[in-house]
Each structure stands twice: as structure tokens, then as C-alpha cells.
């Protein structure tokens, strides 16, 4: 009898680890997702829906600026199961190099646009339109919030918008008029046969209360809601999610279109110093594409694939659209041979 009990106990003991591995245990498997700040709301919606369908998983979302999203894995040595960034080009730029690349593919799944977020009682809000916005922003008694182009993609994209507006409206004073003399040294504009380049100085501090510079566009939200600033350039999904008034800018300048207002050469933003040794600080004005990848050194591959499948599914698309993120009708990959087989059916 005692031998039987011992055998049963042994079987239970040996079985326990296997039961935990297949998700039958009480503690759910973790799926670590690191994403761009403007994806927080869409991905939290994904998390809720995913965990309802797959209660054996716990999706943990962590957000950073897009460059920092990738650096968590490539430089800081952390592991993540899924990475999602607001600029697809960062994935090949920062992850594909070397004999053991950190990733070998990405899938573009969403786009976005930058526009002006404001309150109904913002100064001159009643005069704001797609034709007048830059005149309003240049007024002395209007307070504009900018995110710092040295730290935030929406910051350098805002400079691109102001410069593209000069071409669209055929008015070469817009960038200077909006920024005024707030920055010393100023943003420098140079042009050659290939490109127009905006160079952001190493020290970029606003010397006037007319412009509030903050580290990221997310930090401008509370200033806007509290009345400390009148306007801020924000991603459309973020502005709408927070219930702010939002002026959509023409597609040729809001970085939502392949066709930008500068047609015969590139528009670049160059940072005057190298913030990350692994990143060349030169950014091209182009349509905004969000992209997702699964790093090579993944901890929970099964969970990563399941979550990414859900992200690309119709249910996932609906979750993200519910937070005003514009998903792509057709997902795009740069390397279909490397994309995991279970994701190919969504492309």
C-alpha cells in the first residue's frame, strides 16, 4: 500500500512541472510587450481583449520612446517577447546588423498623423482652420507646446510639419514665425540639390513663455488640459483618445501620406549631436508607419506569436481602431521569408 502511495506521489511530483509548462497552472504565462508611447491605449485595449480569450497569459505592457523601445533589447540586454515602434525604419536600422541580428523582419500594421490638439477655449480657437493655423500659432499671446526633437519622434516630426507647411502654403516664413526667437541657437535650415535639412542644436531650450518645450508629446497633454498651453502637436489617436479638440492638417504635411509637400528632394531633421552611439540622428520626412517584430532572443515565443497573431487579426484591429489608431488595410512586411509562418496568413 505504502509503495502505491509513493508511486502516486512520485507521478504527481513529476507531472507538476509539465502541467505548469502547458499553462495548466494557476499562474499565467507572461508575455512582455514593449511599445511606443502613442501605442499605450491601443495596446492596453489589445491586452484586455487578449487576456479574456487567453486567460492563461498575462500581457505586460511597457512603453518608451521608439528608440528606447529597441534599446531595451539591443543595448540594455533585456528580453522582450514583442516590440512595437512608431517608426518602422528603426527596426532594420537598430536590430538587423551583425552576425546574430536581434530581429530579421517587421510587419507594418498601423499609421498615424500629427495635428493640432487644443481646447475649445484655447486662444483664437474660433479662428483656427487648416488655412490659418500657422498664423494663429505665431501670435504673441498664444502658448504652443512642443515636444523636444532631441528626445521624441513627434518633436522632430513637428519641425518637419512646420517646414512642409512652407512648401504647401508657399510661405517661407512659417517655421521662423512659429518658433520665433525662442531658441538660441535656432533650428538651422540648409539646402542642397538632394535635401532640405533642419539641424536641431545641441542645446534646445525655450527662452520665451510663448513656447513650452517638454520631453515628449504625452507630457504636453496635462499642460493642455490644465490650460497652461493653448495648442500642442499630437498624434491624432492620442488627441482623440483624451477627448481633446483636434485640427487635422492637410495630408501632404501631416506625415500620413506618401506624397509630401516637398516633392523634388528629401526633408531631413538632423540632430547636432549623437544621443545614442548606435543611432545616426538623421530622420527623413515620410509617411508614419508603426511596426511590430518579435526579437530573436524571445522568452515566450509561443505567447509572442499568439499576441502578434491577435494584434494582426480582425479582433485586434477592432481593438486598436477603438482607441482611434488607424490600422492598415493591408499589412506590409519587409521580409516574408523570415516572418513566422503563423503570421503569414494575416499578410
Amino acid at each position, binding site marked *: 500500500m505504502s509503495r502505491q502511495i509513493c508511486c502516486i506521489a512520485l507521478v504527481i511530483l513529476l507531472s507538476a512541472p509539465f502541467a505548469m509548462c502547458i499553462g495548466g497552472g494557476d499562474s499565467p504565462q507572461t508575455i512582455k510587450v514593449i511599445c511606443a508611447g502613442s501605442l499605450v491605449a491601443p495596446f492596453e485595449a489589445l491586452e484586455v481583449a487578449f487576456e479574456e480569450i487567453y486567460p492563461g497569459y498575462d500581457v505586460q505592457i511597457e*512603453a518608451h520612446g521608439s528608440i528606447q523601445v529597441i534599446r531595451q533589447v539591443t543595448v*540594455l540586454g533585456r528580453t522582450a517577447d514583442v516590440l512595437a515602434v512608431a517608426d518602422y525604419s528603426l527596426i532594420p536600422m537598430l536590430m538587423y546588423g551583425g552576425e546574430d541580428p536581434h530581429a530579421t523582419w517587421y510587419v507594418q500594421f498601423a499609421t498615424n498623423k500629427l495635428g493640432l490638439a487644443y481646447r475649445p477655449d484655447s486662444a483664437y480657437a474660433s479662428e483656427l482652420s487648416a488655412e490659418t493655423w500657422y498664423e494663429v500659432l505665431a501670435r504673441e499671446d498664444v502658448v504652443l507646446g512642443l515636444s523636444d526633437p532631441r528626445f521624441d519622434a513627434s518633436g522632430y516630426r513637428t519641425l518637419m510639419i512646420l517646414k512642409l507647411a512652407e512648401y504647401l502654403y508657399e510661405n517661407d516664413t512659417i517655421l521662423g514665425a512659429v518658433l520665433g526667437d525662442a531658441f538660441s541657437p535656432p533650428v538651422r535650415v540648409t539646402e542642397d540639390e538632394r535635401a532640405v535639412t533642419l539641424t536641431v542644436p545641441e542645446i534646445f*531650450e525655450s527662452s520665451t513663455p510663448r513656447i513650452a518645450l517638454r520631453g515628449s508629446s*504625452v*507630457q504636453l497633454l*496635462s499642460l493642455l488640459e490644465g490650460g497652461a498651453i493653448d495648442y500642442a502637436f499630437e498624434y491624432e489617436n492620442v488627441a482623440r483618445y483624451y477627448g481633446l479638440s483636434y485640427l487635422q492638417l492637410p495630408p501632404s504635411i501631416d506625415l500620413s501620406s506618401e506624397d509630401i509637400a516637398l516633392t523634388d528632394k528629401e526633408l531631413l531633421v538632423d540632430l547636432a549631436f549623437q544621443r*545614442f552611439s548606435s543611432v545616426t540622428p538623421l530622420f527623413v520626412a515620410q509617411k508614419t508607419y508603426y511596426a511590430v517584430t518579435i526579437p530573436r532572443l524571445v522568452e515566450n515565443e509561443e505567447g509572442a506569436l499568439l499576441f502578434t497573431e491577435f494584434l494582426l487579426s480582425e479582433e485586434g484591429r477592432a481593438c486598436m481602431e477603438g482607441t482611434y489608431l488607424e490600422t492598415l488595410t493591408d499589412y506590409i512586411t519587409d521580409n516574408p521569408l523570415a516572418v513566422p509562418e503563423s503570421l503569414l496568413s494575416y499578410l
Partner: protein
Amino acid sequence: MDRNITLLCLIVGMLCIAGCITGGDEVSVTLDGESSAVLTLSDIKALPAVEGYGGRKNSVGQITLPMHYKGVPVTALYELDHAIAGDSAFRIGATDGYLATFSYNQFVNGMFVVYDEEGNEIPAGELTLILAYEENGKKIPEEYGGPLRLAVIGPEAPITDGHWWIRFVSTFEAVNIEQ
């Protein structure tokens, strides 16, 4: 003015992490440029220390509540009375390849945006940018950016932007910025 005039360059050697891991006093600091020297962690600890509380807020609004830090004011690493002009800026780098440039106002006067624990901006009190070597009474472990990291502290336990809290500090360089 020559943009690249280096007033002073302070390099914490690549032994920083090794020094932390081994627990030894092996961290080296090199002063380079017109004036250069090598400092060990002991040298840094021998400088007049300051301590206080500081917290940080990352780019998406997540807050690390204030903790106690001890270290050296970054200004103490320089001879302010004659070396730093108002148009100076300070490049501070890390062994992980990160680099940030601080203005004179930030470096010398401690001018940073301050938040409350809910993330709302509040008026800044007295702030000091320090090169910290202790966090909550212990040496700063590598996973938290040690052995040397920047911290912004003050008597009111300020919360400031995390991108100024450089981890694994390895280089200091003062430069003149063209106006």
C-alpha cells in the same frame, strides 16, 4: 568662438561596471582635454557629498517615486569660479552609448521641470544635479544604472524627467555652444 574648445573632460573608465560587480574600489575617472586627471570612485567619494531625495518620470508618464541619493554635485567636479562660462554646455555620456547635453542653466542652476506624484507639473524648488553613487544608503547596483548615475535631488523630493537621469555615467565634457 571655437565650438569644440574642450574646457574639461571627465571620463569614467570602462571599469565602472567591473568595479561595481566585484565590489572593489576600481572605478576610474579620467579628466581629459586641456586639463585631465584620473579619479577613482574613492576620489569621487572624497569630494564634499550632498544627499537628498529625487524621483523621475519617464517619457510616457510612468513615475519612479523619490528615493534617497548621495553623491557629488556635478559642479563640484569643476572649478566653477573660472572655468565655466554662461555659454557652456555639458555633454555627459554613458558606457551604454547614451549621451545627453545639459545647458548651463541645468548643470549649474538646476533648472528642470518638476512633477508631483500624479505627474502634474508643479513649481520647481531648489534642485541639484548630482553624480550619485548611493541609492537608499547602498551603492547603486548595475541594474539600476550604477555604480555612477545622475540624479536630480532637492529638499522637496522633486520628480524630474527621467531622460536626464543618465545611467552608467562614463564621460563628462564641457563645450562652448555657438550662439
